[in-house]
């Protein structure tokens, strides 16, 4: 039995193995995490709400199942937490906004329901940028989450609380959402793994929308393998989400597929994004050289992949988000604009005065860009690029028009609809984590997870935790 001091740093896979072998009590695990939250969350503000009693009672049920040999699977008894845009029945769901400060959904989001069905223990609800776009903001009822590697640093967003909580050992995994990079930014800046699954693979029912033609729900955890275990539970057709697509999971599930090895895979490196379009810092350029060497050592063939400029993807992505997000929030932006954070207004309000033709052209351009990017997968199994142009910046240096004023490396996969994940592949000299982005063809999620897992194993990055 491990001491309670390190239970919070178990991976989901390790904890599941110990619970199955009856070497770990789900109640002890939940208590260790709740104690850790009580001690550390005041420095990180990752949680907006902690559901301690419910967590303990769910963990007790899991412990009973374990003793009876009736575990449902690897998530039974595993403590998780959810970005506060996921509806949770009877538990306040605010989107980190004054607008929904007292919103208590009657039903769980489909993903939350599926995780509950799998026996997961919900620890609480996590910070986000307001409605998954407006932040970090200091003019809201709750402060923004802080990066556990350095609390003066930005977590990335919008799944900021999930990134901080998983990295700091305040949850073994969780749910985020990704419309323009909101899973991959915090995964990169907080040094964890996060996958934006193929659009339509995971239900968005009960997830408060931002931009419905781009929104994607997905898992975040310490490792790619843990993301795969979470994806096994949440992937699958949901007829109540109009964008949900029937799909077949890989043989044995994503958890098994993540460990299948990468020898012989054809990897395309999109250098132009971080060398030319948005030049990255020296440490990221070095990290990308290391990643290329590492992939070759793993038996992959590596070649440069060319694709349209980053700004094309970002133009389509940002214009679509602006138009759709404004439409969703129009009534409240007209009636009480001051109820939103200034960051939200700056990022969304211009959608009310943009031309309809621009929105339509953005959608038409999206289709063309998606076809061009996805055509690369006839030559490559996956594409690899940086997750961010540098390590986590200072929280105080974030500008209100971030995302509008400069492109991001994440937008291409939102535009193409394919899966994309960020894994930690190393650290900058100042100790901050660096993310590697892996992009796959639509429904190539298993291959993306396998590359992520292989990179984590080969880089040894998973043995280092923030010293908080």
């Amino acid at each position, binding site marked *: 039995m491990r001491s309670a001091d390190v239970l919070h740093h178990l991976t989901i896979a390790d904890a599941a193995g110990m619970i199955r072998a009856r070497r770990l009590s789900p109640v002890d695990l939940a208590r260790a995490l709740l104690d850790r939250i009580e001690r550390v*969350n005041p420095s990180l*503000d990752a949680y*907006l*709400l*902690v*559901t*301690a*009693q*419910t*967590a*303990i009672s769910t963990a007790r049920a899991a412990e009973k199942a374990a003793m009876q040999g009736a575990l449902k699977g690897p998530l039974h008894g595993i403590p998780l937490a959810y970005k506060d*845009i996921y509806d949770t*029945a*009877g*538990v*306040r769901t*605010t989107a980190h906004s004054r607008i929904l*400060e*007292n*919103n*208590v*959904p*009657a*039903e769980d989001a489909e993903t939350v329901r599926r995780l509950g069905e799998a026996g997961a223990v919900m620890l609480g609800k996590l*910070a986000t940028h307001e409605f998954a776009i407006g932040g970090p903001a200091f003019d809201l*009822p*709750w*402060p923004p989450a802080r990066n556990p590697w350095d609390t003066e640093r930005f977590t990335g967003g919008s799944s900021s609380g999930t990134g901080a909580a998983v990295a700091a050992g305040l949850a073994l995994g969780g749910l985020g959402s990704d419309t323009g990079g909101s899973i991959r930014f915090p995964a990169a800046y907080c040094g964890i793994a996060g996958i934006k699954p193929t659009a339509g693979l995971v239900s968005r*029912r*009960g*997830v*408060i*929308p931002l931009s419905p033609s781009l929104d994607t729900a997905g898992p975040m955890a310490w490792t790619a393998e843990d993301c795969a275990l979470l994806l096994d539970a949440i992937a699958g057709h949901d007829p*109540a*989400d109009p964008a949900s697509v029937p799909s077949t999971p890989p043989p044995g599930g994503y958890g098994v597929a993540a460990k299948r090895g990468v020898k012989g895979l054809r990897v395309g490196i999109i250098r132009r994004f971080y060398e030319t379009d948005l030049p990255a810092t020296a440490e990221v350029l070095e990290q990308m050289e290391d990643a290329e060497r590492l992939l070759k050592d793993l038996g992959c063939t590596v070649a440069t992949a060319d694709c349209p400029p980053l*700004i094309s993807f970002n*133009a389509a992505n*940002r*214009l679509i988000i602006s138009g759709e997000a404004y439409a969703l929030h129009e*009534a409240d932006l007209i009636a009480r604009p001051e109820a939103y954070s*200034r960051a939200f*207004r*700056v*990022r969304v*309000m*211009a*959608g*009310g*005065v943009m*031309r309809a033709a*621009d929105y*339509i*052209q953005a*959608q*038409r*351009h*999206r289709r063309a860009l998606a076809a061009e990017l996805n055509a690369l997968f006839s030559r490559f199994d996956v594409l690899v690029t940086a997750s961010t142009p540098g390590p986590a910046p200072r929280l105080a240096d974030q500008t*209100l*028009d971030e995302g*509008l004023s400069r492109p991001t490396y994440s937008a291409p996969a939102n535009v193409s609809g394919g899966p994309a994940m960020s894994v930690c592949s190393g650290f900058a000299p100042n100790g901050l984590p660096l993310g590697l982005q892996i992009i796959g063809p639509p429904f190539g999620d298993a291959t993306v997870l396998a590359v992520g897992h292989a990179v984590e194993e080969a880089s040894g990055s998973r043995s280092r935790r923030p010293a908080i």
Partner: protein
Amino acid sequence: MIRRAGLTLNAGQKADLAVSFQHLVTLAAKLPRERKLSDEPAFVFLPPLPSPASPEPAKPSPRSPAAKPAPTGPARAAKAKPKAAAAKAKPKPAAKPAGKARPKAAKAPARQARRR
């Protein structure tokens, strides 16, 4: 444009809007405009498919608007019957707020229903 959009903004909010609008104009200028008329628009409305068993349009499919799938996000609470929703929507006693700012006690989604 601001007036036509129905927005009532103070000077600071107008200044913020001007900055973000300029960003959108710059981004929109990056979009190609010379597509052929015959290029398929990105939005294609798909009517509900008829059931394979009956060629006649009889029962709505699960994707049909008539099937009324559960609305997502904030819309759900607004569409739910207020009384039923209020009865179901009691916060779990275990929930306790975290962080520095303590939120007010959770209420039924009546407030949300009002805003729609």
